């Protein structure tokens, strides 16, 4: 289980990395190597050139952006996302879900850009970025382009990235005010790839001047049950505008999600079992998110209180 011979170059700038990638018709980017190394050790891939992008400062770190969003360099490690106070404050959903990303040793090496570019249908990062409407910066020979995660994810282990393009940065816009969320994942063992995971966010209207609070924005995403992480817009639309959720709506939403996905059968779970998980976990996750939304107070300082109250 040793890789075939390859060349290795360390990129000194993003442009240099793009040039190196373009210099060979069988090049691959290496950052944390947590997915790539097993693949090349099994000789499932035999790249002739590995371009190391871990020493590019532009690709590091988490920055605050105007309007309460953040911007994350693609070589930022999972563990940094997991422990970042800025993320905990602005996107507690990420902090919460990161503990499901493999094991600590892997989170210490693996990068967010690597996970997104690998596009494993059972990996957390694509789902989280899909839920948060992230915008991806992609740099190639012709410069920078920005696209949505939905456009980026093409299929299992497949993205729109060209061989000489690099995912360099991920921008996450702020969430609407009064957003609550829930995230649930099931894997065989702690740290394994998910058999199914569901993330839900619910954002309520302000309810000022005695108006009834309503769902202003709702997002439902699933992974492990489709060839990519998937948002279920039909189910989301069913929630928007509602001031209450009863079990029949929750059932209906879960049914829509389950009929939208197309799960695979593999060694660990049949398509039927994955559908069962999608149905039950959607109900559970939506219920939890709704209960949190209900429990939240109606003051203008909604967001801050959510955080202290629920220890997100």
């Amino acid at each position, binding site marked *: *289980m*040793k890789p*075939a011979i390859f060349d290795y170059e360390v990129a000194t700038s993003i442009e240099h990395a793009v040039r190196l990638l373009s210099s060979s018709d069988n090049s691959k980017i290496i950052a944390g190597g947590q997915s790539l190394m097993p693949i090349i050790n099994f000789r499932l891939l035999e790249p002739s050139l590995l371009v190391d992008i871990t020493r590019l400062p532009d690709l590091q770190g988490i920055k605050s952006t105007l309007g309460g969003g953040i911007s994350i360099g693609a070589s930022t490690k999972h563990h940094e996302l997991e422990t970042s106070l800025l993320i905990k404050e602005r996107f507690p959903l990420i902090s919460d879900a990161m503990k499901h990303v493999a094991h600590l040793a892997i989170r210490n090496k693996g990068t967010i850009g690597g996970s997104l570019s690998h596009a494993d249908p059972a990996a957390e990062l694509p789902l989280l970025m899909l839920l948060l409407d992230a915008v991806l910066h992609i740099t190639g020979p012709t410069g920078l382009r920005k696209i949505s995660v939905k456009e980026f994810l093409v299929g299992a282990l497949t993205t729109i990235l060209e061989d000489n393009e690099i995912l360099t940065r991920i921008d996450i816009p702020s969430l609407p005010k009064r957003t609550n969320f829930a995230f649930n994942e099931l894997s065989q*063992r*702690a*740290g*394994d790839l998910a058999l199914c995971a569901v993330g839900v966010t619910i954002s309520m209207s302000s309810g000022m001047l005695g108006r009834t609070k309503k769902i202003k924005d709702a997002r439902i995403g699933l992974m492990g049950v489709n060839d990519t992480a998937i948002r279920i817009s039909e189910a989301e639309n069913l929630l928007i505008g509602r001031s209450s959720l009863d079990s029949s709506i929750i059932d209906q939403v879960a049914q829509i999600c389950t009929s939208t996905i197309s799960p695979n059968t593999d*060694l660990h779970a049949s398509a039927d*079992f994955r559908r069962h998980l999608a149905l039950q976990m959607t109900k559970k996750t939506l219920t939890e998110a709704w209960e949190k939304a209900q429990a939240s107070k109606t003051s203008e300082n909604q967001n801050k209180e959510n955080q202290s109250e629920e220890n997100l």
Partner: protein
Amino acid sequence: MTNKYIGSRVKRKEDPRLLTGNGRYVDDIKIVGQLHIAFYRSDHSHARICNIDTQAAKCSPGVIDVFTEKDICEYYSPVIAQSRMKNYQATVMSILAKDKVRYVGEPIVAVVAESRYAAEDAAALIAVDYEALPFITDPKVAAQLNAPKLHEELDSNILVERSFRRGDVEQAFWKPQVHIKEQFRFNRKTSVAMENRTYLANYDCTLNHLTLYSSTQVPGIIKDALSDLLNIPGNELRVIAPDVGGGFGGKTSLYPEEILVVLLARKLKKPVKWASDRLEDLTTTSQAFDELIDAEIAVDADGKILGLKAEVIGDVGAYSIYPWTAGIEPVQVISFLPGPYKIENYDAHVRAVATSKSPTGPYRGVGRPCSTFVMERLIDLASEQLDMDPKEMRLKNLVQPDEFPYKAASGIVWDKSGFVEGLNAACDAINYDELRDQQARARDEGRLFGIGISTFAELTGIGSRISASPGMPINTGTETASISIDSTGSIVARFGVASHGQGLETSLAQVVAEHLNVSIDSVRIIHGDSDAVAHSTGTYASRSAALGSGAAILATRALNVKLLKIASILLGDEEENIFIQDGFFFNKNTDKSLSLKALAKAYYSQMGSIPAELKEEIGDLSATKTYDPLWGTTSSATHVVALEIDRISLKVKISKYIVAEDCGQMINPLIVEGQVHGGVAQGIGAALFEEMVYDEQGQALSASLADYIVPAATEIPRIDIEHLDVELPPTLSGVRGMGESGTIGAPAAIANAISDALAPLDQYVTELPMTPERIFRLVQAAQNPSS
């Protein structure tokens, strides 16, 4: 004598080394100039080899040479596991596949190169043309006499066939109150030791001597086999098992790669190493119990078992493994099926069937994880029909304390062990009645909460009267200890047994120190080396504590006789007035004393201190003794587990786990508890996670640790242990073996608890492992009874 070490929680002497990363495993041993092997392995499960093209590989950079079977066949005799069993058909295994391949992963070509990288690059250039032969993957089909044969020279694919019969089974099954008939399946698993199999052979041309460093549990067996197969005199061959990172049975057999490194080191006159990677280890290390069991039990209205029947097919894979044979696992399923219960009428039949999959071999618990799973399920199924508590039904049928020795239906004789005491102790410790109340409340809330019991017995520490594998013609019944005190007064105790995680360096030092009355720090244990003693087989079958400590006691006794004679002369008094304590000899009548070190120096180095004729009689200060426990002894235990199945995820969460076990005299409770914890963890793996999945073409699908799921620390609950103190067994040290009991009891207890949890849905377990997927299917079946 007061016990100072035996029974004490002595910290393991090997742990500082192992836990700080300073263990020395085979792959840590690097000899200047060592060459590396990579194999081209079959990707067909059953095919004829038409052509092998190694030309490009031979020209690849760094390659020394490339070997196929025809290049090496003249240097060795093929591997044939012999047996005295009737109806046994031996298989012939070559090192590299000859003419045809019989499982995916079978080695065909060996590339020797300057590095493993270069060897793998060259192996990737090898091209083999195959002619596909019929897949032989379903053991039921393979067992039919007209099925295509895996080994053409044999009469059929049935390598072993055996029956046990006692009493009048027809009568027992004549209209019993309860008649349970069920088919059980325990799917194939594998050992997954942390250290993959690794071998390094070093040939010293100047001395004409070969040393094999092997990650083996059985250096003695390997030495004997290699001496025969390669025709090397034993004094030119030494097999060393240095630190070995787990075995679980997977390192008890002789492997083709192991013979090849020795053969090539001799041929190339260079050190040759092969370290398997995880893919090779998962697909080529001997795999475990792949059994299909049709079983029936007849029970009267009082819950008394009237009769038991079983028809077993064991899928043993491609070859009858050396030296244990294909009989080791399947035959012991029916040897042990009646368990610790009084069953007068028994009829069981087993066939070990060759298929085009990796060979199976001994695995921790051998036979008994399967037999216990089946028997304990049958008891629970019967007790449910009788509306009797499963604990009650067990109590009625267990061999009672006054009924030992008891000859079980298969002929095994149980010496006295705490069968009933174990069941009661486990149930008391877990507060069984209160747990049943808790279950009733949980069920009222619609929760799937289950309690499972398993009670079992095993033979351990067996001596020369029973082979460790039925019919196997090698001596597994004795072990030797050789203890010596040198001219500096240092104590070295040499054993043939070989530790691969069990802590024998500590437990055997405890025994030696106790019986020589010296400090444990002054005792050095040498093990895992064929040069340590003249004959040994190694560590397997829960034997090393019982046999090793017995040999140690005999050797210390003989050595103490010598020491007393010398001390009486040096201290000037009769032997009966001399005693030894903490490494000093004292004269009861005077205040004179003498340290062991001073005694040794005086004996060896002071001319004239000991009369010449006595010195001739005593010889050096050493004693070598061999211990044979003859029939061995019974170990027994009861496991009780409480668990809950999550309604959404269908995952099993174990909330309580208790083991009450009778292992006789504990040498070191810390080590005993560690063995129980590790065994139960592995049993939880077998019950819930681990499965070696093959498709119908014989391709191993779970060939990585992402797909072959072993439980991690996060999946293992707290495990509580009750040690029983019933009656010391007939072994010399009073020790019963206990290395395997965890893996034997856990699958059955968990299968029963899952069945109990699913009882409100009228579903139960007949197959292991019970993955969330399998539980999902049972829940589905409950919801759609028609489909």
